[in-house]
């Protein structure tokens, strides 16, 4: 899921002040931002109280099913068309993709209410960790299912670097070095990588902006990647 965290409240207030917004509509997201406890009903109500505490009015709020889904968000906007047209601005408690979907669905100024930080694993309720950066050129087959691109702070494909000490990472000293974990698991599984050096990464697989269209020719999937 997409992990978000609250955005500096002063920036949101400044955004509202920039457009002279006295009346605000709030939108959350029923998926990731709800699980991340940043843009569900509870957080929307907290944001409502905070905006009202600045002397502004909240004309209404909505938590649709998935903010980044164009169809669903347009539908949600239509359901609340009166409250939205009464508002001077919309603040969205969802990831950047959700904010943009809302901005495409309403004609008012739309502001982000959260910071989007990473694609996260839910390790436990409320504990999220980044394990994949969606590089489009996966090496997990060679690295025992542990991603060096993401979990090595330097993103080295071949490691450890010289800062590894006692098996721990030089940069995040409370964590095991990703490459020590990789080598250990490979050895445990009897598939020692030996001395094979992983080739430089193909960053053209992750050119911005990514797009996949399953409706185009059958079997095509052009990610940010140029997979023919």
């Amino acid at each position, binding site marked *: 899921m997409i992990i978000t965290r609250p955005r500096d409240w002063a920036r949101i207030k400044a955004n509202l002040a920039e457009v002279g917004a006295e009346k605000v509509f709030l939108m959350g997201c029923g998926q990731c931002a709800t699980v991340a406890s940043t843009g569900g009903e509870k957080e929307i109500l907290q944001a409502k109280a905070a905006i009202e505490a600045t002397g502004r009015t909240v004309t209404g709020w909505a938590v649709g099913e998935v903010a980044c889904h164009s169809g669903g968000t347009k539908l949600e906007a239509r359901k609340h068309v009166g409250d939205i047209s009464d508002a001077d601005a919309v603040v969205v408690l969802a990831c950047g993709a959700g904010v943009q979907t809302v901005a495409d669905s309403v004609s008012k100024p739309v502001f982000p209410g959260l910071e989007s930080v990473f694609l996260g694993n839910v390790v436990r309720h409320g504990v999220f960790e980044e394990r994949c950066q969606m590089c489009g050129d996966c090496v997990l087959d060679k690295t025992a299912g542990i991603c060096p691109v993401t979990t090595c702070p*330097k993103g080295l494909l071949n490691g450890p670097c010289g800062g590894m000490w006692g098996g721990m990472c030089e940069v995040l000293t409370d964590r095991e070095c990703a490459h020590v974990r990789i080598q250990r698991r490979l050895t445990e599984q009897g598939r020692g990588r030996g*001395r094979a050096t992983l080739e*430089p990464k193909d960053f053209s697989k992750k050119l911005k902006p990514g797009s996949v269209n399953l409706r185009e020719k059958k079997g095509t999937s052009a990610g940010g990647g140029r997979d023919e």
Partner: protein
Amino acid sequence: MSRLRDALARGEFVVTGEVAPPLGTDLSAMKASIERIGPYCHAVNVTDNQGATLHLSSLAASRAVLDMGVEPIFQQTCRDRNRLALQSDLLAAWTLGLENVLVVTGDDPRGGDHPQAKGVFDLDSTQLMEITAGMNEGHDMLGRDLAGATDFFIGGAVFPEADPWDIQLGRALSKVEAGARFFQSQAIFDMERFARTMDELRPSGVKVIAGVLLLKSPRVIDFINNKLAGLMVPDHIAERIRAASDPAKESIALAIEQVRALRDIADGVHIMPLGNDDAVGRILTGAGLSE
């Protein structure tokens, strides 16, 4: 021809030193340092934004060292440049007469003076060694012919005191396969362990220059143990320096003992005087490597 390569090939015990380019354009302090340590060294490393802190480039500074008649070891870290820039700088280095290159990963920007910087790490050190070896054969990383090849003497870093060692040993051997012909090691404190490392590396044919770090004060020890990644001063050595009435003098005595021990094990020593350049001559003379 790289004198460093020649000396190592002849089986001579080599000495390398290290200078840091300035933060700015005034090269006089670096040159003064070269004047002090150059006469004792076969070659001198010129660091590349060491510790992820801003300095004048190793490329220009290495050339300045060469112009003084001292052979530089041009350093290239993977942290600050992508594959285009790295290859381009290597070609430039060759045209500037730089023949030794030490290829390292580089410290993470989070520990440096520009923590907001993006760490590039487009390539890692092993990959860059392979590419450099390819340039020596006359092609770029895509296999295209170069109009004029390089002939670098390619070096890498090795970390004999790191744990788990079997993993670092595997890495070191991959580096040799990628094209490393010499290693410069992290500071060595445990001579027995280093001798075993040499036994493991020798069959690959790589030459190993052992690091000797001048522990000139208790403060330096604290810095290494708390701030420097991938290195720890063992307690008995730390105690010896801390208990000394004159730690600076004791550190030179210690370095002399280390160089003497390493003479029988390594292919050379890499002296890191941490600013105390005058100690270099005293250490080498004390160890019988210089008059």
